[in-house]
């Protein structure tokens, strides 16, 4: 038998797939990152690092970024934990609806939340000023914390919900029959078993919140973070090496935390269930804990519901809170002219990118789990870079790399892809961003579902004489179809709502919705920006619904005896 540490000889399909995937990773992540690095080493970039010990301003920015990451990571994880715990351990009416409400932030553009929160809770907020007579200052740290926590906690929620559901209820029962009460079980069994999920969620939220650009631009006020500083370097100072320097400064903690997160989740995947899980969860039936949890859950869900209702109402009101007269003016504006173009372009580009992202993700997953033995960890890591690297950094990297033709030894390898005069008006580079930002979701769900499938199924196919490609197409892909389609849904939602890399790459020929929403909000035309958000959410929901139908529509082909076919 061949040692399973060494890579067996690859068949031709595996080789092609491997080369294809590596080429994608090089072009879509590594090359832009290399250029960031190159520019950051220019004098204009280097100065940011050399001056950091002296520059109080830059120190403040770094501190702001880390503080924001830590706060949002902590609060978002706590919130996700409480809501997931409530979902799994308490029986109450409206459970399903609250679950769905908790997921809305995942499929909506991030600043929908920010803008609506300003309208509701800002200095002239509908709730703060008109209802409570308060005039708080939201801009800055407090506003960012609220908005980012609400935007990102669903990631922690989903993560922990999945883990809580997969815990064998018999573990609780074993604790219980050994004399432990509910609190003791919670402390000594539930929480320790969820530590990997808790830590993983915290680190993910940390990365997401330090990488976010849209919210600091809308609600950050004077609270500058690395992402917004890099943006200002490009759009205000026109200092590319400076932007590259700040990007690198942001990239370091992001990648570091990403590596820690991977290390954690691998070391702690101890939740192995032997035998069939038995027993069932004993719900919390009474007591202050139940009411405390229910209060938190309802409060958060109502808050989210109010925020998104504001988005919807704001899109139909003349100026929400000032003149609430119903109007379709915002939709007219948004759907005609430039606005309408941006809707069309965004949807087309996202639809092109989605299947590519799904395929790339699945291919990497398959290679990592089934084909590549040596270095599979590295391949997995490289595949995840698209999401580990902050969007701002990706965007700046692309702008630097593809604003000009890529040449090797004087020969043009790739023509100019981004900026004015690029081929296809810069559309290619946007599809590339969508693909690399979305494929990691497919990769993760692909890996998760391939790990569930017995490798001997692949081997059976090979032993019956199927080539690598046929095995992948006829056996592997159908088996992970569910994961593939889920991956597609996330890929599409992700593409439609992404902003930070796009903002550096849009041209007059390829207007993109998220960038338009930001521009409208920036001008204070919230009605237009809300209308955009509503349209975007409707599109995302429609496409997700269609994909869902496709999942349910096609089951395994059923065998019919000949007699029945006639």
């Amino acid at each position, binding site marked *: 038998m061949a040692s399973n540490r060494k890579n067996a000889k690859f068949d031709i399909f595996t080789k092609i797939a491997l080369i294809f995937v590596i080429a994608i990773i090089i072009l879509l992540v590594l090359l832009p990152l290399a250029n960031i690095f190159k520019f950051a080493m220019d004098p204009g970039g280097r100065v940011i690092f050399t001056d950091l010990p002296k520059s109080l301003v830059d120190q403040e920015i770094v501190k702001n970024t880390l503080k924001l990451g830590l706060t949002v990571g902590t609060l978002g994880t706590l919130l996700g934990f409480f809501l997931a715990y409530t979902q799994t351990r308490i029986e109450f009416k409206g459970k399903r609806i609250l679950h769905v409400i908790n997921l809305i932030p995942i499929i909506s553009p991030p600043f929908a939340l920010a803008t609506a929160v300003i309208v509701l809770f800002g200095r002239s907020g509908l709730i703060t000023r008109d209802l409570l007579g308060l005039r708080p200052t939201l801009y800055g740290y407090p506003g960012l914390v609220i908005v980012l926590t609400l935007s990102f906690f669903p990631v922690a929620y989903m993560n922990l919900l999945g883990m809580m559901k997969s815990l064998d209820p018999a573990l609780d029962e074993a604790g219980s*029959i*050994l004399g432990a009460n509910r609190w003791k079980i919670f402390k000594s069994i539930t929480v320790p*078993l969820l530590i990997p999920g808790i830590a993983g969620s915290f680190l993910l939220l940390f990365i997401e919140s330090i990488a976010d650009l849209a919210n600091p631009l809308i609600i950050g006020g004077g609270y500058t973070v690395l992402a917004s500083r890099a943006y200002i370097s490009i759009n205000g100072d026109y200092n590319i090496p400076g932007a590259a320097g700040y990007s690198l400064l942001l990239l370091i903690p992001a990648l570091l935390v990403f590596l820690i997160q991977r290390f954690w989740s691998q070391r702690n995947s101890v939740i192995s269930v*032997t*035998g069939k899980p038995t027993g069932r969860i004993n719900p919390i039936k009474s007591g202050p804990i139940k009411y405390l949890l229910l209060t938190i859950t309802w409060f958060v869900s109502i808050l989210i519901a109010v925020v998104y209702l504001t988005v919807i109402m704001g899109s139909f009101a003349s100026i929400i809170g000032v003149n609430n007269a119903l109007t379709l003016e915002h939709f007219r504006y948004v759907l005609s002219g430039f606005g309408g173009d941006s809707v069309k372009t965004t949807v087309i580009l996202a639809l092109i990118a989605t299947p590519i992202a799904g395929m790339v993700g699945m291919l990497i997953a398959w290679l990592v789990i089934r084909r590549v033995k040596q270095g599979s960890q590295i391949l997995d890591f490289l595949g995840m870079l698209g999401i580990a690297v902050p969007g701002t950094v990706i965007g700046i990297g692309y702008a630097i790399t593809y604003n000009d033709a890529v040449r090797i030894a004087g020969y043009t390898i790739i023509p100019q892809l981004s900026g004015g005069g690029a081929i296809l008006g810069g559309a290619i580079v946007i599809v590339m961003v969508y693909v690399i930002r979305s494929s990691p979701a497919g990769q993760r769900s692909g890996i998760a579902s391939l790990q569930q499938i017995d490798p001997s199924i692949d081997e059976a196919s090979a032993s019956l004489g199927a080539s690598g490609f046929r095995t992948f197409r006829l056996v592997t892909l159908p088996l992970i179809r569910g994961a593939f389609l889920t991956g597609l849904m996330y890929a599409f939602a992700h593409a439609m709502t992404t902003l930070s890399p796009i903002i550096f790459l849009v041209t007059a020929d390829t207007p993109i919705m998220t960038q338009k929403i930001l521009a409208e909000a920036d001008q204070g035309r919230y009605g237009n920006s809300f209308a955009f958000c509503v349209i975007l959410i409707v599109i995302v929901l429609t496409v997700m619904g269609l994909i869902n139908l496709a999942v349910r529509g096609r089951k395994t082909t059923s065998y019919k005896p000949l007699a029945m076919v006639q």
Partner: protein
Amino acid sequence: MKAKTGRLKLTNLTKEFGNGSDRVIAVNNLNLTIEPGEFVTLLGPSGCGKTTALRMVAGFENPTKGSVQLDGVDLGSLSPDKRPMGMVFQSYALFPHMSVYENISYGLKVQKMSKTKIREAVGELLDSMSLEHLANRAPNQISGGQQQRVALARAMVVRPKVLLFDEPLSNLDAKLRAQMRIEIRSIQRKMGITSIFVTHDQDEAMSLSDRIVVMRNAVVEQVGTPDEIYRKPNSVFVADFIGRSNFIKVESVKAGKVGTAKIVVVGKELEVAAHEKAIASSEPVLLLRPESVQVYAAKKASSTGVGQGKVKNVIFYGPHVEYTLTTNQGEITAVVSDPTFEEIVHIGEMAEFTFSPERAWLLPSDAEHNQEIH
């Protein structure tokens, strides 16, 4: 020595799930008294309510009706952590984030026992179950059989008054299963803990139990010692579920001496042991275990057997031979021990079969038996 504790009394224990059209009666009026130190198995086909009954005793399910008493005290709706019981789960439910030692000491820690005492108690148990070399391993670093033993140790270290087992051996291979049976039984005997063991494996039930409770469709069919259940089953169902059976139609029945009946089978008159309801039954059947049937070649002119049949199949196992005969009474299976080479009858040949009346058992037909229960 103090008086033995751990008498468990289940009275009219009933559990219904759901309501309206999806109402399921999982356990129906279970009455059972288990003596201190007794080992009782609940045996029955899948879905008959064994697990539900066990979970009501543990306190994981609240009975719809009826009560669980321990040493004369009604446990009422006492939660599981307040009941002096231990349980071994089918999935073992070992805490994956704790070492073997931590798993076993968990119950004592919950009782706030001092560290040194815990070390002593756990150490002793680890030693007696030969687990000490695994103390610092994680549950996923030990084998299935070892996990099973750790689960048993964890349940036992708190000295429960009652031990509950829900198919704890079903994840082990046959050899280990047999070995664990012996181990469980010997430890349980030594400690004298009242035990309820759920299984649908009859060998397990026969080899482990002081008494067996056979369940079917939420109802108890029979309670008895393994030999009673095997030799004197209450019903065709029990006879069929436990061991292998031949059922032979009876042509006529008359009362005989106490506990027996005079019957006619295959035109021959015999006096056999009989169930008390068999004589009044309209269609009693005769139970013959395969090992009670003798088979030999039908060569002699004068027949000495009970009946004749054609050999449909013969399987030679070494110590015994198994025959399937086609007879006027239907197919009859016989297991004949230690036959000589010459004695073996071959496929297609005619054979005679016979049995000694004291090894047969007359049963009432099942339909009547069930009517009385409902």
